[in-house]
């Protein structure tokens, strides 16, 4: 088997046309770097991949990739992928990305084995199944990152642990937390700790930050990070109010800041598969239920239990994910109809420990339920004219047909996928969030729910 760089574009086009049943754009093939495996002469192509420039310098996109049908199952795909990756390294690319589809099972397995990360999924034509976007960072040296708000028991701690698991991409250069106990914990792990952002010396050359602070402080911290020119991964909710989201939107305008939002369920393959299945269905009822994973008798640890830091609770926390997911699945504006927020007396006055929202979109009803069951769980149930679908992070099933989609294991570390997206945002500002419209729509519902609960005296209604 020989490796051939840039085979005749006409041969390459015919090769892909035979496999995909549709000829790709010849000019685009000419512009791309094609790498082929051949057997015999240069016209007998058995596997071809085309690498083209991504949205910015340093980023590449594997546009076409295929192995001839008679040659599959011999490891040629892996060989070709290796060739493409080494070519990308030689040409100085830092991230390469490709899109594959649910139906190409062998491709998914191969990408997993070679360290690629599934970063998001997209609906596609039904016969192709879910479209999956995979990335492979190819850094010559890891990027330096700070985690701001890093309680080992909280989300910041989760991010820090994932970062430490990715030494090829990230160097956890600083941990910032006002709590002496938290700082002591991370210092004992050999990390540099700081009480505030102002204490971080410029010499540390930090390029990115993971922000996992209570919502009340999120905007202020993000402003500081933007001033320093850092790319940011911000844990949801991105801010404490609609007004702050608008302010943040203003800061992002014109590419002045690079932001990756820590709200990823709408990119989750299971839910994208569910959306694809719902495309032809009349949705009647859609219920998203998320449990925080904190037993009733445990109290609220961290900022949720501290009245001086808290604004909102379950709804602004996991409810944010649930609402975003419902909005994504329904694909239309969602209106709040009723809300019920509950609290326990020993918690902060403005923190709800459970939320129950009823919304409607057109003729479909949506139910958002957030509670504190002891195990952290989530589930989506959709009633349609074509039956009932149930989805969670493992896949999608229907009552009538059993399992319809199984999520590839790659996604089971959603943090890893988001951190890969942060790598891309560091190297390619165009791949970061350009605006925050989804969050505006979400915050509108959240704020109205808090407002109604507050006005009508519902138990635990937070002040908006």
């Amino acid at each position, binding site marked *: 088997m020989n490796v051939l760089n840039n085979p005749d574009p006409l041969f390459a086009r015919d090769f892909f046309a035979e496999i995909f049943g549709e000829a790709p754009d010849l000019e685009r093939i000419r512009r791309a770097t094609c790498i082929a495996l051949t057997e015999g002469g240069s016209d007998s192509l058995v596997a071809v991949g085309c690498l083209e420039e991504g949205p910015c310098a340093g980023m590449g996109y594997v546009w076409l990739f295929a192995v001839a049908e008679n040659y599959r199952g011999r490891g040629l795909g892996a060989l070709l992928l290796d060739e493409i990756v080494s070519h990308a390294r030689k040409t100085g690319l830092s991230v390469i990305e490709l899109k594959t589809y649910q139906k190409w099972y062998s491709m998914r397995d191969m990408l997993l084995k070679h360290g690629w990360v599934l970063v998001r999924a997209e*609906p*596609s*034509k*039904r016969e192709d199944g879910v479209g999956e976007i995979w990335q492979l960072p190819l850094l010559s040296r890891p990027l330096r990152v700070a985690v701001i708000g890093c309680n080992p028991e909280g989300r910041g701690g989760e991010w820090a642990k994932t970062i430490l698991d990715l030494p090829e991409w990230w160097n956890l250069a600083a941990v910032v937390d006002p709590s002496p106990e938290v700082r002591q914990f991370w210092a004992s792990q050999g990390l540099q700790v700081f009480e505030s952002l102002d204490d971080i010396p410029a010499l540390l050359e930090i390029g990115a930050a993971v922000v996992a602070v209570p919502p009340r402080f999120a905007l202020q911290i993000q402003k500081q990070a933007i001033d320093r020119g850092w790319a940011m991964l911000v844990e949801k909710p991105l801010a404490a109010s*609609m007004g702050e989201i*608008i302010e943040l939107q203003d800061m992002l*305008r014109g590419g002045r800041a690079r932001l990756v939002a820590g709200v990823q369920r*709408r990119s989750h393959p299971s839910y994208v598969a569910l*959306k*694809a299945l719902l*495309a*032809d269905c*009349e*949705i*009647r*009822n859609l219920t998203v*239920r998320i449990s925080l994973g904190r037993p009733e008798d445990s109290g609220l640890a961290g900022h949720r239990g501290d009245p001086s830091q808290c604004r909102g609770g379950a709804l602004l926390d996991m409810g944010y994910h649930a609402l975003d997911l419902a*909005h*994504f699945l*329904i*694909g*239309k*504006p969602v*209106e*709040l*109809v*009723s*809300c*019920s927020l509950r609290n326990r007396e020993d918690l902060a006055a403005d923190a709800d420990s459970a939320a*129950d929202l*009823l919304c*409607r979109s*057109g*003729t*479909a*009803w949506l*139910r958002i*339920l957030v509670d504190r069951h002891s195990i952290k769980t989530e*589930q989506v*149930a959709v*009633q*349609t*004219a074509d*039956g*009932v679908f*149930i989805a969670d992070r493992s896949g999608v099933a229907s009552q009538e047909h059993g399992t319809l989609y199984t999520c590839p294991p790659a996604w089971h570390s959603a943090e890893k996928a988001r951190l890969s997206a942060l790598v891309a945002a560091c190297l390619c500002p165009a791949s970061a*969030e*350009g*605006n*925050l*419209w*989804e*969050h*505006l*729509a979400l915050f*509108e519902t959240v704020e109205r729910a808090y407002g*109604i*609960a507050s006005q009508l005296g*519902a*138990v635990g209604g937070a002040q908006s």
Partner: protein
Amino acid sequence: MNNWESSLAAFRLMEVGSAAQALANASEPTLREVITLRCGQRIESSLPVVQGWQQYFQANYSAAVTHFSEQPGEGWLRAWADLGIAKVASDCGFWRSALEWCALAWQRAAAGEHMDLLAEISGARGEILLRSGKPSEAASSFAEDLALLRPGSRYSGRVRCYLAHAWSRMGNHAGRAARLFYQLAAHTASEPGTRSYSAAGLAVHGVRIREPFLVAEAEESAPSGMPGFWVRVCKAKLETSTLLRKKSLEEAMEILPPEYHAEHWWARGWLSGSVPDSKFLEPLHIHPLPPANLGVTTLVEMPVSPDAISDAPWWDKSKWPTDAEGWWKLRDNFMP
């Protein structure tokens, strides 16, 4: 390309957009959509504006606005992208901004006399105005939309229905026109969904102007599902006999399966007297699409009744706070 040709091109590209939307939604494209895409050479689908609409129909508003903003030029494609941003702003509750984007889209589309696009913009503006509590202005916009539509357009029934909503909400002086247009749409619209919602609209209008025969006329067309529910609720509203009122309400509740618990909760409340007459509903969002109409087992336990019912638009808008100019629920103006 003269105006007529460019107008045709605009129309064709909009068709490409809706075909691309079907693909983006992962539904099986119809033969017509496939042909449309083929005729469109699939090249247009790479345009930012088409990608923007694809994202909009996925409720990916951020990506949609990004694509819409990237559409270059000043022509009708740019106008179509402006309309897309207006729709996003409207979905997020920024109605003033939405209207400003509509105005910009109109200006650009009008410069090239792109009639189909102008009709679409008028309809979008009408919807925004109707949702934001300006029925009179909405009526003007829908009337404009109707005038701009091509003769025989399949959207005319839908637009008539919207126009009738606007007139109906304006009060008695526009009542006759509302009635006429509801009747017209209920009998002539090409879409069954529009027909039944027009019938429901006629019934609600009958209650508004206290004309029981309009409710009876709506009932004759025997709509099912959600419109049928509201027609029977309207009938109950006008009944003077408590017994007959109860019977009508029970009929209404039978039409909708119990999973529509908010409607059931409300109807039960009204029946028992805990919801006062003064809170008689606006019709549910009169939705141009056919209603979801099947009952399936509820998987997740639903509570008996919500703790607090908001004054959401389908409920009682009179409680909504308004600003000095009488706008409902508006955010501060915000341009993306």
